[in-house]
């Protein structure tokens, strides 16, 4: 089987997976890693300069493929023994969901490109005011300091952040339940009643939301928070129980399921 890897085409590991699975119509675990590596090395040699970004990106993709292939080799029965809620099958489903989401936005982006191309056929008039009206316009320098200028200049000239490779790209669990318990206990007393959705709106992965949910349940069990849900599947309202003692919470040092 021959696979052409063009590093400039694949924007990330999901891209590569999508392409491998959908375009090449292969079963992921049958992809020969050595074929990809060979194609990649050929590609790199043809480049005039070594592209560090492309190289690190490729390492990431390759390691994900190795990880997935390795798992394929593990006996599936072990699954029955585990207590772990976030095991192989969940990760696979999560990956599938994320691939689908990725594909959804890829297609949405194609539509955006078309819309932008259509819109680009017209250019806006930006000539603005005739000089004779300029003196009437509001004072634009009002409140602008030299510090603002410096900040604006830095923003315009700043180098772009370097690419950081996230090696936990599949279902990373960034926080433990015990840590989430501590965070909620720190924040909630000052915030009154909030919805669970609001409490977790900055979280990235579903798995993290689950962790926070377990943390809230834990606090509920301890009797320091009150929970309320008006409708089935409606927003869950979370509030610190009046008079509850934060000290009770500090006793938790590990989450025991």
């Amino acid at each position: 089987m021959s696979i052409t890897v063009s590093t400039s085409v694949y924007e990330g590991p999901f891209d590569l997976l999508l392409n491998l699975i959908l375009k090449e119509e292969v079963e992921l675990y049958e992809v020969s890693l050595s074929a990809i590596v060979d194609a990649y090395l050929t590609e790199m040699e043809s480049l005039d300069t070594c592209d560090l970004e492309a190289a690190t990106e490729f390492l990431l993709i390759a390691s994900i493929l190795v990880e997935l292939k390795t798992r394929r080799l593990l006996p599936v029965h072990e699954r029955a023994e585990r207590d772990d809620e976030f095991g192989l099958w969940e990760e696979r489903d999560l990956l599938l969901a994320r691939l689908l989401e990725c594909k959804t936005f890829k297609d949405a982006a194609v539509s955006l490109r078309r819309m932008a191309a259509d819109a680009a056929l017209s250019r806006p008039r930006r000539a603005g005011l005739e000089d004779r009206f300029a003196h009437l316009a509001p004072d634009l320098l009002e409140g602008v300091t030299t510090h603002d200028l410096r900040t604006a200049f830095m923003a315009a000239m700043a180098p772009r952040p370097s690419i950081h490779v996230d090696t936990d790209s599949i279902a990373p669990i960034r926080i433990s339940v015990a840590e989430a318990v501590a965070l909620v206990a720190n924040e909630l007393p000052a915030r009154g009643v909030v919805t669970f959705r609001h409490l977790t709106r900055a979280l990235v992965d579903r798995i993290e939301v689950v962790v926070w949910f377990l943390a809230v349940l834990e606090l509920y069990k301890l009797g320091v928070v009150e929970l309320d849900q008006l409708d089935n599947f409606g927003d869950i309202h979370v509030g610190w129980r009046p008079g509850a003692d934060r000290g009770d919470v500090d006793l938790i040092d590990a989450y025991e399921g």
Partner: protein
Amino acid sequence: MVDETVDGAEDVDVEARRAVEAMLMVAVDPVPPNLLAQLLELPTKRIEAICEGLADAYEAEGRGFALVRVGGGYRYQSHPDQAPWVERFVVDGQSSRLTSAALETLAIVAYKQPISRAQVSAIRGVDVDGVMRTLQQRGFIDEVSRDAGPGNAVFFGTTREFLERMGLDGVSQLPPLGDFVPGPEVVEALERGLRSDPDPVVAEVADGGQSVAPTEASGPAAPEG
């Protein structure tokens, strides 16, 4: 003459029409109809009717420019079919194209706003800091809020500049995200590709397909106990 477009051609409408033309001509950004309504002391509906009338008249007269509603207001722009001439005339940086990485990131922000950088990264599966910064620098996205919650996350949304570049009046005009959710054959192909067991569980696949619907990713449904 364009009187037929302002049918009845009352003096008030003729005057309002001329004032609208004058004000839009000196505006730099799209002018919201309610601002025109306020200045002219006319109902917004009337302003909208006047603007639509003007737009239709310019088109009917075969003008080389157009009046369009975009980014929440009305603006003059060159007629799309004059693009070849305008391109020759204006040589500058605006025609720079967005890479597909930038467009995908933009699509995620547009549909999921407000959204944090980390959330966008999670969807794309790669670090998006550089792309997000470029999009912000070019005015397509901007910070819309900061969260008081965990991590003090900064949330991003699209700007009026984005709407103008896409030719949209508002984000509600974006095609529904549901239109892009992959069909069953794609779900099946992906499922097959990821299969780690000779014996697929179809129900789980269906769940996986549902969970990318444009709803919010957060809510883990109801508590079980």
